[in-house]
């Protein structure tokens, strides 16, 4: 018979084992990225006997240079995250606080974009973008991400704004506030955690997105980081620089990790906002 202490210890042992299982691949990638020369190639070794940053240096010489791709990724991710945050907040406010003809229909149309999987509209999407001359441009990719990430963002913002008590609105209106003041000075400060969440979710989703970027970007200089890494992985002339690949993987993990850690508190707060509303 194991006592309460035994149960607690078992619980922590289990949690520890799961943590190790999840962190192991990351640790392995980090270790191989620091291994010199052929050491990073499979079959995998364990701890590197010698540490080097040469793999990271190689990465800056791939294609148009690493920074070009990082810049592309940052521009697309930040652009779409900012656009989604602004549009979702405005739309959420509108859907929450105004009753207008066609409100239900408009809401369902926006949500429909969430129900249709991105993968199934690939071909038509490519054709549409080519027709309007936006394929192979960063702006085009930003707009595509914005469109497909908007429904979730709007949904989150709507639930957050719904949870702001109407009494606050009424008090502000009595004091002479119009809709703009209402949004800017009453609602916005209260839903700030949700806005952070929406920005974060969209930044990370756009940063990691692969299929859309692969299809829409045909010029190597327009690639985002994931697409660039895959071209590294498939190698030139059949040779694969595993060290550089691992180094690139580490670099793509860093921004999302830093952002998530920095805003973790808001993140959780924002996701559960409105969750308790009956």
């Amino acid at each position, binding site marked *: 018979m194991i006592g309460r202490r035994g149960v607690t210890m078992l619980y922590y042992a289990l949690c520890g084992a799961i943590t190790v299982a999840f962190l192991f691949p990351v640790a392995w990638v980090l270790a191989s990225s620091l291994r010199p020369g052929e050491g990073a190639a499979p079959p995998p070794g364990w701890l590197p006997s010698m540490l080097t940053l040469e793999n990271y240096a190689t990465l800056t010489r791939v294609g148009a240079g690493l920074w070009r791709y990082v810049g592309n990724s940052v521009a697309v991710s930040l652009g779409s995250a900012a656009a989604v945050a602004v549009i979702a907040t405005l739309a959420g406010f509108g859907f929450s606080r105004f009753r207008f003809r066609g409100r239900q229909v408009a809401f369902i149309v926006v949500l429909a974009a969430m129900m249709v999987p991105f*993968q199934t509209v690939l071909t038509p999407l490519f054709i549409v973008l080519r027709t309007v001359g936006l394929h192979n441009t960063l702006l085009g990719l930003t707009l595509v991400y914005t469109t497909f990430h908007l429904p979730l963002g709007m949904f989150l913002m709507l639930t957050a704004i719904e949870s702001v008590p109407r009494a606050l609105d009424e008090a502000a209106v009595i004091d002479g506030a119009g809709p703009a003041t209402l949004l800017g000075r009453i609602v916005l400060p209260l839903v700030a955690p949700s806005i952070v969440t929406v920005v974060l979710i969209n930044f990370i989703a756009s940063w990691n997105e692969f299929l859309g970027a692969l299809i829409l970007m045909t010029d190597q200089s327009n690639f985002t980081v994931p697409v660039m890494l*895959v071209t590294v992985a498939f190698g030139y002339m059949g040779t694969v620089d595993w060290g550089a690949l691992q180094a690139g993987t580490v670099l793509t993990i860093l921004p999302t990790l830093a952002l998530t850690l920095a805003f973790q508190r808001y993140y959780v707060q924002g996701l559960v906002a409105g969750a308790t509303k009956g």
Partner: protein
Amino acid sequence: MRRTLKLSLVLSVTGSLLAFDQFYIITRGGPQNGTISMVYWIYSNAFSSFRVGYAAAMSIALLALVLLVSLGQLVLLRDRDA
């Protein structure tokens, strides 16, 4: 927990049905198309063989399939007492 389970089940099953990245990056669908996924097949038809119409038709079929599977799960996991 039925509703939470329902949501995560539907999301993860549709996510897996629509998988592409892993297949493309790890195996490129090979050997001999042995590890190809539905989205990969659509992708290679549209953007490698340029059979765009065929690919678009398959996209619709895939959408119908995903819809069917999701509906099936929702029916199986419906609230009995509601």
